[in-house]
């Protein structure tokens, strides 16, 4: 049972109205959403199972406005939840009914494009793909490419440390963010990093990326862009068994080849996808593997035969090589539509995001199969095989009594298998609200305590996206660590203090 240490604050009867007026004073009438029906549009993100209506939603246009709003929240102890495009899959943007949502959607300018120095500076509401679009004509692109990149925002990418298909070779968001402007929960605006490298001091930037909105709100981001590769070659292979696809991945790595991306889908996903988008996937295959190689001509030309050799060695049923951009797009069409296609075979599905060491792929998949049979629920598997990031899709029907709960439990068991195999509970979707009950699978009390210590330097009042990531709320002792002495609330079993 989770209990909140912070008692719900006693507010005077018309506090809410006054607070709304104060927000309007900062943002103007059109910067604040009051009406219930409009607020509902913000009551969840792409994890639609949990919905909470916030008190207000605000849409600031500048860092100054964000700062003033947050300062007011700090002064009046009002929690807040930052929000980008709301495409998150872990409930990271789920509002709190005691606070507000701060939407960064209106801060959507590309501030600077500096090609010679390979930098782009953006506001948090800029979409991921529009960064690449802004530099594409110069032969550059922004490498982290989550599937939702047409819609998802850089601010959200920063909060979750988003990956994407090509992060195997090129890294995740944290490897491409060079500078941030952050508004701390008390309204202070700080800058960390910038267009140049190796600034002295701690790597605040590295901490804030992936912090899921718990350390403040990012209002400006300096990104690194890279040159498009000379050549891209995509291979498609099908296998009888998914273990063969997994062994191919290990084999390719063992040959010293690091592809730009490697993706696997199992038969359940193949069939759903083929029905939906007709990508030409063989519906009888146990699994398919996509391998994308990129780089200088000669490097790719040398890697191709190595990869083909590995695939044949694993008894690939067929190997196709995309002859042009159109074919390449078709190979990818299936993979990119894997999630939506599941909607055709199942009324509901619950996607998870566990990571495992690549070498344990076959074993973990076997275990997932066993669990699926144990629970009587189908699990489709599509994943970033190159970095071991699984996306098991637990299919269920919410209209059948108890099935939603079963699906949740099964998903939790799958995450347990991932952690037991030496992996992680989340590779890119974030912990959010969805997986906080599993965080202790990976981290013990000392680990969580240490992380909380660090958070207290940013957000001593615990107002920034509360109720996310960490299973139990923890307060911050004013002067840092003291000799251990139980607080009355601890004695009463109502909470923990660090």
């Amino acid at each position, binding site marked *: 049972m989770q209990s909140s240490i912070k008692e719900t604050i006693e507010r005077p009867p018309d506090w809410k109205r006054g607070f709304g007026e104060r927000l309007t004073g900062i943002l103007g009438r059109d910067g604040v959403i009051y009406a219930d029906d409009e607020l509902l549009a913000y009551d969840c993100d792409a994890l639609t199972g949990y919905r909470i209506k916030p008190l207000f939603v605000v849409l600031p246009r500048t860092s100054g406005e964000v700062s003033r709003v947050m300062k007011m929240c700090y002064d009046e102890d009002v929690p807040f939840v930052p929000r980008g495009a709301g495409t998150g899959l872990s409930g990271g943007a789920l509002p709190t009914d005691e606070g507000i949502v701060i939407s960064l959607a209106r801060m959507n300018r590309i501030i600077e494009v500096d090609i010679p120095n390979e930098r782009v500076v953006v506001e948090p509401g800029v979409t991921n793909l529009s960064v690449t679009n802004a530099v594409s004509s110069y032969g550059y692109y922004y490498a982290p490419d989550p599937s939702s990149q047409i819609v998802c925002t850089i601010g959200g990418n920063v909060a979750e440390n988003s990956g994407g298909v090509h992060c195997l070779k090129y890294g995740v968001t944290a490897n491409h963010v060079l500078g941030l402007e952050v508004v701390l929960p008390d309204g202070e*605006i*700080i800058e960390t990093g910038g*267009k*140049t490298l190796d600034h002295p*001091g*701690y*790597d605040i930037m590295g901490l804030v990326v992936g912090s899921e909105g718990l350390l403040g709100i990012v209002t400006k981001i300096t990104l690194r862009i890279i040159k498009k590769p000379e050549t891209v070659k995509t291979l498609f292979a099908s296998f009888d068994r998914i273990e063969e696809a997994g062994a191919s991945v290990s084999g390719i790595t063992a040959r010293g080849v690091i592809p730009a991306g490697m993706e696997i889908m199992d038969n359940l996903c193949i069939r759903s996808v083929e029905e939906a988008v007709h990508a030409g996937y063989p519906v009888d295959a146990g699994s398919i593997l996509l391998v994308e190689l990129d780089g*200088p001509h000669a490097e790719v030309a040398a890697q191709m035969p190595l990869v083909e050799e590995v695939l044949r060695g694993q008894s690939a049923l067929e190997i196709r090589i995309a002859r042009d951009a159109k074919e390449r797009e078709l190979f990818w069409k299936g993979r990119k539509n894997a999630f939506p296609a599941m909607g055709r075979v199942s009324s509901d599905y619950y996607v998870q995001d566990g990571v495992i060491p690549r*070498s344990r792929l076959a074993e973990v998949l076997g275990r997932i199969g066993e669990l699926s049979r144990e629970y009587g629920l189908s699990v489709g598997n599509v994943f970033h095989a190159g970095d071991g990031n699984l996306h098991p899709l637990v299919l269920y029907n919410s209209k059948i009594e108890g099935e939603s709960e079963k699906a949740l439990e099964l998903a939790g068991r799958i995450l347990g298998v991932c952690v037991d195999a030496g992996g*992680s509970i989340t590779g890119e979707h974030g912990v959010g609200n969805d997986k906080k009950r599993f965080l202790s699978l990976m981290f013990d009390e000392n680990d969580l305590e240490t992380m909380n210590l660090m958070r207290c330097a940013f957000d001593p009042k615990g107002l920034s996206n509360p109720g996310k990531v960490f299973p139990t709320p923890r307060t911050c002792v004013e002067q840092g660590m003291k000799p251990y002495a139980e607080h009355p609330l601890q004695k009463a079993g109502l909470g923990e203090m660090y």
Partner: protein
Amino acid sequence: MPESSILNELTSIVGGENAVLDPELLQSSAVDGVVPAIALYPENIEQISEIMKAASRAGASVVPRGSGTKRGIGNKPLGADIVLSTGRLNRVIAHESSDLVATAECGIALSDLQSYLGGKNQFLPVDPPHVRSGATLGGIIATNDSGPLRLRYGTSRELLIGMKAVRADGGIFKGGSKVVKNVAGYDMPKLFAGSLGTLGIITEATFRLYPVPEMSRTYIAGFESLDNAHDTVRSLINSNLVLNALEHMNPALAGSITEGLGLGSDCNRYTLAVRIMNVPRAVEDQVKTVSGISQENGGKGLIIEAQNEEAFWHEVREFPWRSSEQAGAVLKAGVLISDVPRVFILLDELSDKYGIRAHASARAGNGIVIISINGDREPVINSVRELRGLSESAGGSLVVREASPDIKPALDVWGGMGSSLGLLKRIKSAFDPGNILNPGRLF
């Protein structure tokens, strides 16, 4: 100076044979002239934890130490009661070659680690200085030290995926994970990389590896003018080439290195060194392209390989410490790629104005310039000030990595830390409320 009861307690934690109390022997562990009262050589993380608990209770300051190759970094410590060596924690704990991941204790010398990983034809692609002097994994992570290969692979900050550490109060914790893709919890490894032993003592690190490239070649070309060299840099960066290193050296350094290696005399020119590591065909193709671009800008080049190549890059990494002169200062400037020429021009002006001698090598694709300045005291101090002025006004930074004892106290080692300074101090205070870990060296 800690009381003898504390020293006895600390000695009993590691055993008498693993503690040094002799003041004469302790001289070599001094940090900027501050001699410790005791040096400890714990054998595992539990002993380190006990040491930190005792030190915390006593308010004794602690300086973590690997091989001590970088102990000149940072301000003079406010205290260095205890030098805590990680040297005995030097095992490789795991190497999952099919996952391209390894975990090792932080007292391991990078060279030993690379030998081990080389057995499976893999390596940790980080090439900082002092590796031959025994630089340890922990020290390299704590300073986020790097070399020319950062162009392709990033620094250890990009490669570190998990860690275990001991806090100032002795608490043991881990952060990150053992898989390359993980976003659970805060990215504590990134906080600790480059934290200079001020937040905790890193004892174990997990990092991603790369396959050892099949072949390596380096193309070196001298140019008539700085502009020609920089135009070549711009073309190389804007191309599709995948370069492992792109170094831009000032005439003084280029002349000294090439002459020292017998690669030719009269090479006192702005010089580029481009390293390509890949499959043979991709190396040959790309070297040809590099050569073509260089020639378009009037570059006269040669290609080196094998021992010559190894020796060359060793000199590039170690040059600030090769000078037979009395050291002045070793600096690292972080500027925009397009501002690197301005740093070179200023170095020239400073030479004329103050008579200093400057050797400099830029990681041209990163905007990082490593500078070694020699000369009389006042000129060196003034030069550092002017170089920092240029770097900071251009939105960058300049850090004094090392300076001789008569110069260092007059220098601002770090320069401005900007608007996040208050937050940095709060973080330090959260992890080390007693300010016992490397006190004063960062701020």
